């Protein structure tokens, strides 16, 4: 299986054909790869160098936490990569944005109203969790199309709080 893996604008072509070897940009390495805690924690011996890392998928990208540094990595298999290139690599931007609760909590304030225009960085919702006031901000300029919560509401993790057009 061949993958095109991208990190900081650099793409590595990585080939995995069996459990014990990997080819990275044409160079072969011996590997011994193990899942350690049933989820997200992995041990890799790469040509006998020992690495341990948290690897988790988050919104289309892989978050790799390695020796205290976080890397955001995109992995596409060959077919996907060809399709992406054919489509001209158009990113789907604009469109609707849904603000989801990043954790369970209590809405303490909603400083915006439906129809209001906001600029990037404006507070949309103030959510209290773990005794902290967390300001959830607009990721870009736009208009608040819908506000789904009010002050005093308890919300679940990933619940949609507001949408922006």
């Amino acid at each position: 299986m061949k993958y095109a893996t991208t990190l900081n604008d650099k793409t590595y072509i990585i080939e995995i054909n069996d459990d014990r070897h990997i080819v990275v940009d044409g160079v072969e390495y011996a590997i011994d790869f193990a899942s350690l805690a049933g989820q997200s924690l992995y041990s890799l011996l790469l040509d006998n160098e020992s690495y341990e890392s948290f690897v988790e998928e988050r919104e289309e990208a892989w978050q790799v936490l390695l020796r205290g540094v976080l890397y955001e990595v995109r992995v596409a298999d060959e077919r996907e990569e060809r399709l992406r290139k054919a489509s001209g690599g158009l990113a789907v931007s604009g469109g609707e944005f849904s603000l989801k609760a990043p954790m369970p909590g209590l809405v303490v304030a909603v400083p915006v109203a439906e129809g209001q225009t906001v600029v990037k960085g404006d507070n949309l919702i103030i959510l209290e969790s773990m005794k902290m006031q967390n300001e959830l901000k607009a990721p870009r300029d736009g208009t608040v199309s819908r506000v789904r919560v009010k002050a005093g509401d308890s919300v679940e993790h990933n619940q949609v709080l507001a949408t922006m057009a």
Partner: protein
Amino acid sequence: MFKKVLIANRGEIAVRIIRACRELGIATVAVYSEVDRNALHVRYADEAYSIGPAPSRESYLRIDKILDVARKTESDAIHPGYGFLAEREEFAAACEEAGIAYIGPKPSAIAAMGDKAVARATVTKAGVPVVPGTEAEGSLRDEEIIAIAPQIGFPVLIKATAGGGGKGMREVIRPEDLSGALAAARREAEAAFGDGNVYLEKLVTGARHIEFQILADTHGNVIHLGERECSLQRRHQKVLEESPSPFVDPHPELRARMGEVACKAAAAVDYVNAGTIEFLVDKEQSFYFLEMNTRLQVEHPVTEAVTGVDIVKEQIRIARGRKLRYTQEDVSLNGWAVECRINAEDPYNNFLPSTGQIKSTILPTGPGVRVDTGVYAGFEVSPYYDSLISKLICWGEGRGEAILRMRRALEEYRIVGVKTTIPFHQTIMNSHRFIAGHFDTRFIEERFEMDEDRELRPEIAAILATLVAHRESQMAAQIVQRGERDTSNWKWVGRYERMHR
């Protein structure tokens, strides 16, 4: 000695106090909210009582319920820990009225130091220098504060009168931002303490936050256990502490002077038990009294590591009326200790709190390493309480060894299930400025970037991500294949178990 002590707290500090009691042969009573049934303090205590639903106001802040449990269990004493009821004059007073020893200062001392205006006035009278500000004015309305601000001079700091721990605090650089910041600070203070009162203070720039641990007994003896460097803060929350302070350590005469002033400040309010005097120190070694924390501090272990004194046991002995077992001359600082506060927050996503079940964990251990934690694999980190889930303390013969040990301990520490601030601390431990000891209270917010000064291994990260992505697609394919075959439920479970072993 006391026969039974009730711990009016939860989390790592409740566990810490239970440990001290157990080592003194004292029985312990835990109280817990509904979501904390399986918390470590409930498991470790001799008795445990549910005191209500998850929100603190309905459980850990309910003085009436806690005193009911204390009476029912015939507890001799109550330890408040930190946070919750730890600096509430009325709680200490209610314990006193109920004939139960409060392991802390007298209500009058809590009141005197809790009201920042009275505190400033009292210590000023005792000859202790203070930072210019409005606490002495009592509760002011927003208009009054806005009017006074120019006299103090910008930048200013808004602080909650009932405050502590950075809650309700806001820095204001420009006069036009003052009004909005006041509203935000009052809202946060109200939520955190049930008291929205705030005051202004001059923002001392380039300052260090250095505090002295003091111990005072009921026989009039007051000593200090040296200083702690607490300048590394984020949103006015301490994130990392050390003892001694790299700023103070080269100047023993400064330590002696500050220690003496700290004892004087404590004596000024007839302080008894363990407490902390916080100072702001500028580059010229001028120091200003900030406030006194009339309780055990989160960061007490660094002092324990360098002095060998078990502060919680000493608190209990003092509350029992014993004389201090140490004189000032007995206290010396041996080696160096650093504490990292491990919070369930995502340092790569604006430190948003992270809740959920701890799936597995590996603690760093070995020489010079101490971990104080209230969580374990299987425990659910809930959104109701603060995000501190663990404290990692490393001791070394010198600051260099302590930092190197902290680096290796942070790298060993595994917590699977919630995001933590471990990578944040790893970046600090690799920061050249931190290693050189060159930092002030603004360092984290102004001159610190995640993953700065780090050795980068992008290729390894790319390989890891690819291997995991590959593995998951292989597993998904297998599961579909398996699902197609005819297998009885029983076989399925067996297979599932093997898969997940």
